[in-house]
């Protein structure tokens, strides 16, 4: 009896000693935990802060570029200036080719007309002392607008003889001046605008003839170097769009098919191991290398045109393929093998098990992986530089075989433009457009995942 009591006592003593040790170590553990949590919170806060800074910076710079100064002019389509023949219509018995030839001739005849005369005439109506400063008068409306007027005539020749009230974009330097993006205290020698032009635009703005309006030019026009104020994203946007189409049509089906084959059907041997290693390596290859590859294969061997979205799309396909394969494979790996066994056990063939049961479960993951791959491709610029998509293209491509550039490359090109004051904002605006596209792609991915996941 007594010994037992003693033992119990001894136990209690050792127990409390153990407890004390536990308590001591507990304090240390809590400290470590706190430290770790603190570090985590700090890391997250810093990254959020950086993202916020980035967005604030880009939006504060870029948003003003969505509005641009335009001047409201009454343009008289003077028949004495706009002297053209009837717009040709296709005659009975005339071949398509003949008609196209006549139409082209007519268009180039229209192109020869001095539409600038109409603009100068319009300006004279709003600027009283215009005639004493003919040179300055030329600086107000950006040069690209004469082509906009030409296109109005081509579209509808019946406006000849009428007066149209039109908003014409002002020169980029005027936009910069009126937005206050240039130091007004600089001397005349350092100013891009002559004192007379500055005086005019100030007073026209005060009268409401010059207004800061939403800039459709940014979205509707291709890039321009002769008329900076009309430079737009449409060309680059279409280029990117064509490339995305190529990537979606090629990379996703090919990548998903390859992943399904490798994951579900291919025998596990040295060869497939080698393929697997190479796919992983491919995903780690710097994107610019794909550009080199594309330049030598698609342009060098297959003689595809330089600077064409189809080549860009093929290069981006090469780059996206490993991403899609890896994402699809990891999705397939995550599908429990019990589902495959259940199907096989019921007498489904291997491909039936895959296509009836595994693939439907994998679809959300495959879609997410694919869309993220496409979004990555959308933002890629390095490989495109090597296949000539960085050249200046002043037209909107109407097919994937025509020269064009891409949104990220356009950002790079604008970033390098000499008219910094104007293009800093435009560059940020282009970044906003690109980010918006990315965000919508990523939201699409999230939506698709959610949408298919609710089917338990």
């Amino acid at each position, binding site marked *: 009896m007594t010994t037992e009591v003693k033992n119990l006592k001894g136990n209690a003593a050792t127990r409390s000693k153990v407890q004390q040790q536990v308590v001591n170590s507990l304090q240390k553990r809590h400290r470590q935990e706190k430290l770790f949590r603190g570090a985590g919170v700090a890391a997250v806060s810093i990254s959020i802060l950086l993202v916020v800074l980035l967005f604030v910076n880009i939006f504060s710079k870029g948003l003003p570029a969505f509005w641009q100064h335009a001047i409201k002019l009454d343009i008289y389509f003077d028949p004495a200036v706009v002297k053209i023949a009837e717009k040709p219509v296709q005659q009975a018995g005339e071949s398509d080719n003949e008609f196209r030839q006549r139409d082209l001739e007519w268009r180039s005849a229209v192109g020869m007309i001095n539409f600038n005369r109409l603009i100068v005439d319009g300006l004279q109506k709003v600027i009283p002392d215009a005639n004493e400063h003919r040179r300055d008068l030329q600086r107000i409306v950006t040069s690209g607008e004469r082509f906009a007027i030409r296109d109005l005539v081509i579209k509808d020749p019946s406006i000849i003889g009428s007066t149209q009230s039109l908003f014409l974009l002002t020169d980029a330097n005027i936009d910069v001046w009126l937005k206050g993006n240039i130091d007004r205290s600089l001397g005349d020698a350092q100013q891009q605008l002559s004192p007379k032009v500055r005086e005019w635009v100030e007073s026209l703005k005060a009268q409401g003839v010059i207004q800061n309006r939403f800039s459709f030019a940014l979205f509707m026009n291709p890039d321009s170097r002769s008329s900076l104020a009309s430079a737009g994203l449409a060309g680059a946007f279409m280029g990117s769009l064509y490339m995305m189409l190529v990537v979606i049509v090629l990379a996703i089906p090919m990548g998903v098919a390859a992943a399904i084959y490798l994951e579900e059907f291919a*025998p*596990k041997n040295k060869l497939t191991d080698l393929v697997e290693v190479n796919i992983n390596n491919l995903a780690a290859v710097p994107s610019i290398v794909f550009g080199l590859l594309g330049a030598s294969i698609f342009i060098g061997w297959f003689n595809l045109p330089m600077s064409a979205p189809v080549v860009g799309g093929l290069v981006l396909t090469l780059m996206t393929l490993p991403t899609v394969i890896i994402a699809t494979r990891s999705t397939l790996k995550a599908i*429990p093998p*019990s*589902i*495959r*066994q*259940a*199907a*096989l*056990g*019921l*007498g*489904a*063939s*291997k491909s*039936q098990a895959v296509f*009836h*049961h595994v693939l439907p*479960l994998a679809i959300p993951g495959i879609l997410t992986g694919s869309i993220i791959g496409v979004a990555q491709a959308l933002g890629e610029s390095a490989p495109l530089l090597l296949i000539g998509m960085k050249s200046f293209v002043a037209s909107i491509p109407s097919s994937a075989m025509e020269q064009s550039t891409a949104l990220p490359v356009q950002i790079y090109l604008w970033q390098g433009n000499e008219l910094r004051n104007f293009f800093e904002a435009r560059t940020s605006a282009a970044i906003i457009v690109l980010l918006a596209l990315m965000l919508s792609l990523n939201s699409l991915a999230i939506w698709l995942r959610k949408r298919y996941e609710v*089917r*338990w």
Partner: protein
Amino acid sequence: MSESTVLNDAAKVKMTARDVKVFYGTNQAIHGIDMDIMENEVIAFIGPSGCGKSTFLRCLNRMNDTIDICRVTGQIALDGQDIYHPSLDVVQLRAQVGMVFQKPNPFPKSIYDNIAYGPKLHGLASKKSDLDDVVESSLRRAGLWEEVKDRLNQPGTGLSGGQQQRLCIARTIAVSPEVILMDEPCSALDPIATSIIEELIAELKQNFTIVIVTHNMQQAARVSDRTAFFHLGNLIELGVTNDVFTNPTQKRTEDYITGRYG
């Protein structure tokens, strides 16, 4: 021997295995097993973990084919026909020899679709009404109909573990197999769900030949007609269940049953 006391002499052999050896790569898991499985009997496989029960079971419907490194030699026949013969279609074999797995694995589809999948796959029911009948009768035979008849369109994965396992059994019997292989079908279930499934097995015996792997000796004793004891890839003893448990002929069987190892 005393087998005739339980199995009448007229009992037909359903499956035969002769000198079956199984290799995983270079590692031999089964060392030459001979076995006859009778029609409409319940035969239980027992033995310590890793002795090859599941491996041998999977040979009986060639589920081992899905394991790349697995190689099977010897002969296994169903109704006298070699199931490893090149001309035999494994899809047809698996329709004849169904399988219920250790962990309930319903498809993440509705209860209805879980049952209907097999019959649709094999073209057993062409009309919707036929399919409805198959679904109902399968669920009834698995003792699940009353519990799920109002929620056939709800996901099979939303059922309890025991219900899921009965759903898997119903799914298997929906394709009218002749043999049902069960690999520890109750190991993930509580005692009540287990006893429900045991009753079910006793009932299914009238129509199917059942091979069941179990770690639960009482279960083997309760549900099976004959019991096979495996050890280290060998079939040590095969006999009428009662004999194996009360009067084992082999020392190793006795040691295992009395809990000396395993």
